[in-house]
């Protein structure tokens, strides 16, 4: 439909380029959103804090998982394999140091073992009587095998233990794997819990921004009707709401970042004291920047999605 040009009026305007239109619309949506957020600063801050708390929790948990993992890695109580050898086959045992996966072998004579046992059990007084009753030292020699760091995976440790167990004269093999396995399992559980909680709380952020968007649309129903009447496209009508959701989400991410940083500051002192008491050089450190970016981006993306889902559904129901 050509538009007639009235005589004597301003010349026909060049139609704006697609990019120009797009840029103008982005700018409009952005400035409108900022204006609305500024118009209700308290409300905006409260929403940002609500979303911030929801986002901070998985953020903190993920940091905790990371820290505990680091502590577990640093723990220099490498699992040892105790090989019980009949009699005193010391040379044989020390030959195992050449085995694949073995770092060192320390030999403990039956007498050493007995002394250790007696000390641990508090039997000093009755030692002689006990030995008499048993007819001599019943304890075997023990080869304490320290595996290579490369052999710390439970399956490889187990394989090494099996091999040692097949050696002649070996009565039994014992690995203190349980502790490590428990720690690993615990960390795995904790990590999964963090993920689960993260998904739940992300869902919470979606619901909060979605609901806010729904209310904002309800409030501005008349405006939407008018925009539709004068030819506003769905995209044009939708964009401010989506931007608002995205911006609230990003503000929530920022709030979460602050909460995480404050929490780490509050925990730094006690953590240092605890680490020192274990002789560990572990330091909590400041919040990592990567997490900050993830919170900001994740918050923004969740806000965008929540607003998009809620607005898309709602706007279709408003026809002029």
């Amino acid at each position, binding site marked *: 439909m050509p538009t*007639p040009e009235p005589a004597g*009026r301003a010349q026909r305007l060049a139609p704006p380029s697609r990019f120009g239109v797009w840029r103008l*619309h982005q700018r409009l949506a952005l400035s409108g959103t900022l204006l609305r957020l500024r118009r209700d600063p308290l409300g905006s801050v409260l929403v940002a804090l609500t979303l911030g708390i929801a986002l901070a929790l998985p953020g903190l948990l993920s940091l905790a998982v990371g820290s505990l993992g680091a502590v577990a890695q640093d723990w220099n109580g490498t699992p040892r394999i105790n090989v019980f050898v009949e009699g005193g086959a010391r040379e044989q045992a020390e030959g195992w140091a050449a085995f694949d996966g073995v770092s060192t072998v320390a030999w403990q004579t039956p007498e050493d073992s007995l002394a250790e046992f007696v000390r641990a059990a508090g039997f000093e007084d009755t030692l002689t009587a006990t030995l008499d009753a048993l007819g001599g030292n019943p304890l075997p020699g023990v080869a304490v095998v320290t595996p290579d760091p490369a052999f710390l995976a439970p399956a490889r440790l187990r394989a090494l233990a099996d091999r040692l167990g097949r050696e002649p004269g070996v009565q039994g093999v014992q690995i203190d794997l349980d502790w490590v396995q428990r720690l690993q399992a615990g960390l795995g559980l904790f990590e999964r819990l963090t993920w689960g909680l993260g998904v739940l709380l992300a869902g919470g952020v979606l619901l909060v921004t979605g609901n806010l968007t729904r209310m904002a649309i309800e409030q501005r129903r*008349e405006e939407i009707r*008018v925009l539709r009447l*004068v*030819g506003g496209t769905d995209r*044009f009508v939708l964009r401010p709401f989506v931007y608002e959701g995205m911006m609230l989400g990003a503000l929530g991410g920022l709030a979460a970042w602050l909460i995480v940083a404050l929490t780490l500051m509050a925990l730094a002192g006690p953590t240092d004291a605890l680490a020192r008491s274990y002789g560990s050089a572990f330091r909590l450190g400041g919040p990592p920047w990567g997490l900050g970016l993830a919170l900001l981006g994740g918050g923004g993306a969740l806000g965008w999605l929540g607003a998009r889902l809620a607005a898309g559904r709602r706007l279709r129901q408003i026809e002029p």
Partner: protein
Amino acid sequence: MIELQGVSKRYGGREALEDISFTLPRGTLTFLTGHSGAGKSTLLRLLLRLDLPTRGQVAVGGMDLARMKPGDVPRYRQQIGAVFQDPQLLQDRSVFDNVALPLLIAGYREEDRARRVRAALSRVDLLDKESRTPEQLSTGERQRVGIARAVVNRPAVLLANEPTGNLDPRLSQEIMGLFRLFQQVGVTVLIATHDLELVERFGERVLELASGRLVGDVPAQVGSAVEVDDADA
């Protein structure tokens, strides 16, 4: 420009329009009269493609509105100027921003927008009130803002639903004069009104609706058109 063929529209069980056919050539001004409930608003809704006819065909600019894709409807509406009885303004925006709305949607640059908005506002004599909000204006002024917004994007078709419903006779006359002005520059104008006295004075073509049927089609009376002073055009 506008062509209806056997158009019927049923709302629930009620026949709002029944078998309407007429053609409005480009650059003509036509009145649509009838009592309230006769189907005037329904007809305008069909032309704005706010509704689709139950039967028949509505074509504007050679385009069958029923076959238009939903995604193309906004672009179509951008080319139609619409004036409503309640002018449908955004209450929290200034007069200027309200009038600029179609230009924002079309994406014109700021200086182009400003030029066009001021041109439209000067036509409706509101240039000095561009920074007020609608609630600071009288009913008549609000109506004129609505008209300025309808014409700011130079639509090919101008539809008006009771544009003078809230205005005193002098203002009504003025606003009708404006519509005449747009018609003279080639816009196809359709005005729904029940102000028969005004309609008669203009001597333009009149379509009369009664209970959803077209019961009269009085052609324009040659030589009886009211002269419009277009010195400020």
